[in-house]
């Protein structure tokens, strides 16, 4: 007699977490399990698959409230360690963006600029417990007479600090090459001339959205690992675009879905939110994101069982096509090829260079697995899953 098809709910899984019976594996372990046992059996045995990614994610930043201040101030311009923050909010609310350079940064004045300190570094310093110099100026009002403020603040003294990243964890990303005859400095790293290297920035089979390609389980309210603490997906990230060409396994062949995420900065760890400087490009923040995927049925087991051989991206020329806004695919490569160290292109073997840390991604997936196994982390049912675009209308 055929066994009944697996169908679990998030509540079932949470019950198993509470009872200490939950079975959790990382996404790279799941690839082997599904390959060996098939999706139906994998869904029967495995409850949760953990994913992870750790890479520079430029669309990141933090909302900070530095009040109350005496005498009261309605700050109109604010900087933290010399890095301007957006102050066009209520009196003492600001947003510090990851890519904002310090006021006195020479930028690309002498190319390639070093971008030694920016918003990402401010966030990193705060999370590391370092004091940061806050300067604010104001035009003064009857209710907020104070016109200037200078003080050193530590994260734990701030009345609130929330990491809120408008776009993280891109579902797939370009593989960048440079076909010109000069070295270029990009957000995809240093690209040597004549296709000297091929840079990529995705965790492949460990990447969160590549394990739930059709957004069946993730959305507003999904509890996740963010910066070493508990965070949440609060919706699709900016540029979320489900309507791109996809492989038979549902995964996109080019950049597609994105996540908007949020978490309490005060709970985070500097290992998982690190300021970075991209030579000739700018400052950014490397963010650790880990997403648990509930294996509710065989379909989800199959999706989470995807391996690097079955995940593909496009080679894009950042030397002339991309800057012109005319990025076209020069070829398709798999993540297995990218991870092997060289990719074939125009008859040559081009060294492939990761910008995304696979080591850290795996560490995140392992940590999240441990949290769930220990009963410290329960899964949530999203209030609304991420927009699936045309796929959702079928």
């Amino acid at each position, binding site marked *: 007699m055929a066994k009944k098809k697996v169908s679990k709910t998030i509540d079932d899984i949470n019950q198993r977490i509470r009872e200490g019976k939950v079975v959790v594996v990382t996404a790279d372990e799941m690839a082997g399990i599904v390959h060996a046992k098939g999706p139906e059996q994998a869904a029967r045995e495995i409850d949760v698959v953990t994913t992870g990614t750790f890479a520079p994610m430029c669309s990141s930043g933090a909302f900070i409230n530095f009040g109350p201040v005496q005498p009261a101030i309605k700050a109109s311009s604010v900087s933290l360690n010399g890095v301007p923050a957006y102050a066009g909010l209520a009196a003492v609310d600001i947003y510090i963006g990851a890519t904002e350079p310090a006021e006195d940064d020479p930028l690309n004045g*002498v190319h390639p600029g070093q971008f030694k300190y920016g918003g990402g570094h401010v966030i990193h310093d705060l999370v590391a417990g370092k004091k940061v110099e806050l300067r604010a100026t104001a035009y003064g009002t009857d209710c907020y007479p104070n016109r200037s403020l200078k003080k050193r603040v530590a994260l734990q003294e701030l009345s609130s600090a929330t990491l809120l990243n408008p776009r993280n964890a891109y579902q797939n990303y370009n593989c960048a090459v440079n076909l010109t005859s000069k070295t270029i400095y990009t957000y995809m*790293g*240093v690209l040597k001339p004549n296709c000297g290297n091929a840079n990529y920035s995705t965790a492949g089979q460990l990447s969160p959205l590549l394990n739930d390609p059709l957004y069946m389980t993730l959305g507003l309210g999904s509890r996740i690992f963010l910066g070493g603490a508990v965070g949440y997906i609060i919706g699709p990230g900016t540029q979320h675009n489900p309507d791109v060409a996809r492989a038979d396994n549902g995964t996109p062949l080019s950049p597609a879905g994105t996540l908007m995420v949020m978490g309490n900065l005060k709970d985070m760890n500097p290992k998982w939110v*690190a300021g970075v400087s991209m030579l000739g490009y700018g400052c*950014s923040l*490397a963010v650790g994101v880990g997403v648990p995927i509930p294996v509710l049925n065989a379909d989800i087991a199959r999706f989470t069982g995807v391996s690097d051989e079955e995940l593909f991206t496009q080679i894009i020329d950042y030397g002339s096509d991309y800057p012109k806004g005319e990025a076209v695919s020069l070829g398709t490569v798999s993540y297995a090829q990218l991870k092997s160290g060289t990719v074939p292109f125009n008859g040559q073997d081009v060294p492939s260079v990761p910008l995304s840390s696979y080591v850290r991604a795996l560490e995140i997936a392992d940590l999240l697995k441990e949290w769930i196994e220990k009963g410290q982390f329960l899964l949530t049912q999203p209030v609304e899953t991420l927009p699936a675009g045309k796929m959702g209308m079928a």
Partner: protein
Amino acid sequence: MYKKTLSLRFPKKMVDEPIAVNLVKKFDLSFNILKATIYPRKEGFMVLELSGHKKNFQRGVRYLKTIGIKVESIGQDIKRNEELCFHCGACTAVCATGALHIKRPEMTVEFDKERCSACEWCVAACPARAMEVRFNRTLLD
């Protein structure tokens, strides 16, 4: 930031140039004197740590040479700050000697000091600023 430790040998008859002021003002460099033995009207020797943008650094050194100072760089070590390195692999794009390389299948980034030529490419290219130039202090004694 480009930083190198240089030894400067001054000729017996020094030209009348405000060297320090010029390095700072004309070339936007900062320096730190680690050792100096300069006697008036005799040959002088100085160990200087010079830092700034690489292009300015090169222009500054050219300037020193044109006014008759013998400039040589002093042995320095490239070190990796293991706290800061997050094993991405970005540095492997610029490391021509293979000193920085990825170990597969683990994907950890290894640093083999023996193969390092101290070209310093990785120092600027590492997003985490984990590759550091350390001056070999034993040369000062």
